[in-house]
């Protein structure tokens, strides 16, 4: 895939939104889990 491909903005938006939201949700749950784990010990 080259940078001059048509519809690049839609492809980048789809991948960007997917990976930003998945990462955000994962980090959010990981930090909450980690905090609870450190409170317990």
């Amino acid at each position, binding site marked *: 895939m080259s940078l001059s*491909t048509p*519809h690049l903005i*839609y*492809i980048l938006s*789809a991948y960007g939104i997917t990976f930003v939201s998945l990462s955000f*949700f*994962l980090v959010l749950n990981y930090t*909450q889990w980690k905090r609870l784990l450190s409170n317990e010990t």
Partner: protein
Amino acid sequence: MKYHLAQPSFFLKITRPLLPASGFLMTIFFIAGLYTSLVTSPPDYLQGDGMRIMYVHVPASWMALFVYGFLALMSFFSLVWRHPLAEVLAISAAPIGALFTALSLITGSLWGKPMWGTYWVWDARLTSVLILLFLYGGYWALYKSYTRPDQGLRAASILALVGVINLPIIKGSVEWWNTLHQPASLTKLSGPSIHVSMLTPLLLMAGAYFFYFLTVLILRACKELKTRKLMILESMK
């Protein structure tokens, strides 16, 4: 399955080694999936590079349905046997399923604009997936709307079971009605009508999404179990 295998203490014990393994597999599948979907897979002869959106859209749709099925099964166990682990797994899975459903709708819209000329149509497939998102939202709203969590969970579980009717509707929507959405090209009886160069990134991304679900489910379920344990200890003081 032996009863002790479904005990929360056993779940916490087995998830300790399972969590890093699942996180590792998720990372590997995401790297391989991204590389094959953006670099090695060819552009489609009709859709061009726009077809690459399918590699994030289709697995998100599969997971949205899979997680709802899991949620309904756990809700059934929690309603019939009042099993604490089933309750915890259902509560933990619902937001992950809602996320996959939202991603399926957003990425589908981003594909629809260049291919159909519009972000949204009130097509049977799109509308039934939107209803699935509302079912996830309704489940969470019901669970949170009661002061006693067990009452909220019972009401939410009934909604989850009623909502199962939407799953065959989503699957059959592209065959039963005239829709703009294309019919299934992978999960059909005559075998997949997709070339292996495009099937590989699709399956790798599906694997990545599955291990993502497993990883976040373990994190959320462990957190919920520990919170419940702390609440019991607090009430005993």
